[in-house]
């Protein structure tokens, strides 16, 4: 299989508490100059992104494509899927800040697919999604799936 390579750049100026960063998508140029700060990461976002928000976006893209694959494989390609991902970072005693959980909530409109088959496809998508596989090393991943 081909190797797929994607790059992003961050610039940080100043100290951690009062400094700020800028983030750009180098490979696609789909986004540029997104601001991030420590305060917006651990408190109110105030229109700034954070690593955890970007991981939630990455997990959503990855899981949803994986689920589209599973449903197509089962002969029931989806009309539409809507996936909501919440990534939780917490301070773990003795280990500092860690990503502790990613919660997947997916609602699907899938012709000829019943709830049981959809739930099974969602479990398989989670098992096959490269991002789920990675973070399961340190965090828990929860899946809740239902048809519209």
């Amino acid at each position: 299989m081909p190797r797929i390579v994607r790059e992003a750049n961050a610039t940080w100026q100043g100290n951690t508490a009062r400094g700020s960063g800028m983030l750009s998508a180098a490979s696609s140029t789909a986004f540029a100059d997104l601001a991030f700060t420590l305060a917006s990461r651990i408190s109110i976002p105030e229109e700034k992104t954070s690593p955890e928000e970007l991981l939630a976006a990455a997990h959503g893209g990855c899981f949803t494509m994986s689920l589209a694959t599973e449903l197509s494989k089962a002969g029931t390609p989806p009309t539409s899927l809507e996936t909501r991902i919440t990534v939780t970072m917490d301070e773990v005693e003795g280990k500092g800040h860690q990503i502790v959980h990613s919660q997947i909530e997916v609602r699907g409109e899938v012709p000829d697919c019943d709830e049981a088959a959809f739930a099974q496809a969602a479990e398989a998508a989670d098992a096959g999604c490269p991002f789920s596989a990675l973070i399961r090393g340190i965090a828990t991943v929860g899946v809740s799936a239902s048809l519209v």
Partner: protein
Amino acid sequence: MATDRTMTTTWHGSLLEGAGTIAAAESGAFGALDVTWASRAEEPNGKTSPEELIAAAHSACFSMALSHGLAQAGTPADRLDTSATVTFVPGEGITKVQLTVRGTVPGIDAETFAAAAEEAKVGCPVSKALASVPEITLDASLV
């Protein structure tokens, strides 16, 4: 205190013929982003992908951790430029992350900077979340 960040993705159709949208960030930081399998696996053509978003998360997280480490050591950074490159092999997973950082840090030597960067690479929350990636490399130097 726990911090939650939520994002929503919508997808229509099969993997190969379908297309998706990552909805505008709930933080308000960015608008909706289109995603497709072709732009993920072949040329981006202006569209982001999960791997690019992971690269963005990692470069931001590493930069903050390094700025924190340098400040703790009494040598705060003026500026850090970090790039993260994520390699994805379909069927195998994410196989490699390359971090490159160039720092402007008054009163520090190259060796101390490299040691601080190594610590950030190991300790930042995204690094810890990606610890099972087979290869994470670091190239750190002062400007």
